[in-house]
């Protein structure tokens, strides 16, 4: 039986207590997207500023949520700054693939509706660094949506930022 220490690693609690890149950015130039966890009420707002070369110039995070959703967002914000949008997409795939170790379980639990298609592609082999600390979340399937909320919201922002 997985214990709380599998879920709440030190680094997660640190990011939860001291979230990086909290705040807002002016839109435009930044884009703003919102994500909801329909079940627990968590909300994430992503402000993403992408320069003309397709590189993330800045990112800010808003919203409220549990330690998992907030720390995931915080670590994500630190990880994507300065990356190109393609790299951001690859990192997202990599992260979500870590979260989807139990993909078949997930499917059986009706989570198959995440329709961004990332799960279908082979996991990108991008090193996850600190984000590895969230690996324990897969032992608590109910919390996977908490961990992926920021990333789905980021993907939306990336799509919008590169749409035109």
């Amino acid at each position: 039986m997985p214990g709380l220490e599998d879920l709440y690693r030190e680094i997660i609690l640190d990011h939860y207590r001291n979230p990086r890149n909290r705040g807002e950015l002016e839109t435009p130039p930044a884009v703003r997207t919102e994500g909801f966890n329909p079940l627990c009420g968590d909300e994430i707002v992503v402000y993403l500023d992408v320069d003309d070369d397709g590189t993330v110039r800045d990112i800010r995070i808003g919203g409220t949520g549990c330690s998992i959703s907030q720390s995931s967002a915080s670590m994500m914000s630190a990880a994507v700054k300065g990356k190109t949008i393609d790299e951001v997409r690859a990192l997202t795939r990599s992260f979500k693939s870590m979260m989807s170790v139990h993909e078949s379980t997930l499917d059986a639990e009706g989570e198959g509706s995440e329709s961004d298609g990332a799960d279908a592609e082979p996991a990108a082999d991008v090193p996850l660094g600190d984000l590895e600390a969230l690996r324990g979340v897969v032992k608590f399937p109910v919390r996977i949506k908490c961990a992926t909320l920021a990333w789905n919201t980021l993907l939306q922002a990336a799509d919008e930022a590169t749409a035109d």
Partner: protein
Amino acid sequence: MTDVTTTSDAAGDGTFDVAKVRADFPILERESHGRPIVFLDSAASSQKPRAVIEAMDRYYETINANVHRGVYEIAEAATNAMEAARVRVGRFIGAPKPATEVIFTKNATESLNLVARSWGAANLGPGDAVVLTQLEHHANIVPWFQLQAEKGFEIRWIPLTPDARLDLTDIDRLLDGAKLLALTAMSNVTGTLTPVRELTERAHAAGALVSLDACQYVPHLATDVAALGVDFASFSAHKMLGPTGLGVLWGREELLDAMPPFLGGGGMILNVTLDGFTPADLPAKFEAGTPPIAETIGLHAAIDYLDALGMAAVREHEVSVTAYAMRTLTERFGEQLTIHGPSEPAARGGVLSMALEGVHPHDLSQVLDQHAVCVRPGHHCAKPLMAVLGVGATARASFYVYNDTDDVDALADALGEAASFFTF
């Protein structure tokens, strides 16, 4: 939670062991009016095997909790069990995306209303047409009348041949310009199996979608919605060894995704403010409120049971009982007894709608009850079909996995009693 793909004891050596099946159904041990019960009303609602009843008991006794993702152990277990049931149901009918395309409703009637009220309300207006057949159950008729009153489209009817098959002479004209063909896969009155695949191809060629009333089909024949090619399929748990209080709507993901929600409430939203709401993703979007959780677990057990028998074996068994019944009754009663619908057992399900000369179906059923033979008189929620058949009612006997030729003999004997009681 693994798929049960091995054949059960009951279907062990290719011959269907009805005695073993019967032993799994507690109600069949009871008597009625002092005789062992002969249950011939499965087309209305089937009996339930012990495994189904026990699965629901186990749910209530060990993991009962509301779903929608409570974090505590039993809430997670309840959620997982319900979602496992969803996937099981989807796989049983060949759904390409079981986790998102299977919607739990309260019965097939709600499923059919959902198609009308959500897809229909968003897509139909004056100048449009919906094509129905004269075989339909009220559940696939009344919702269209209700919507028609609001939206003003045309309803067209596929007529019947004298033996209650679909008369496709005019089908091209009927489908021309239609947006939907809504039809039953098998009539609950005459047992008629309709040519779903052929009609679906024609409907799609004409630009119409197809909504299938699979209420009498899924319980009795191996079903593959993808192979049939239909766009929606509706059925009820209680007719397939499962509990009351649960129906299923399957629909193609793109269609369901594009449709507006039906009932509003908890569980079907992404966000709600004082100014409005945003609906959730599939399948939650169509499942407002606390779902029939225990019932989905009962249906899971029912499907395990049916799959263990093997749907091909189930069908084969029913055809053989039906053939025996048609032969026996015809030999015994000749012209005195009319059996509506196709005369070829392989072209129909195990549903016999009967007319015994000089005895009204209601009276007939009453006499049969005294002999512990349970059949159903009435219009079977298909009054337009009754009008076509030229009767007010029929007495209907229907067969399922637990029926055998002894039941047919009991039926024949009781019919004989009724005939002599009313026509001495």
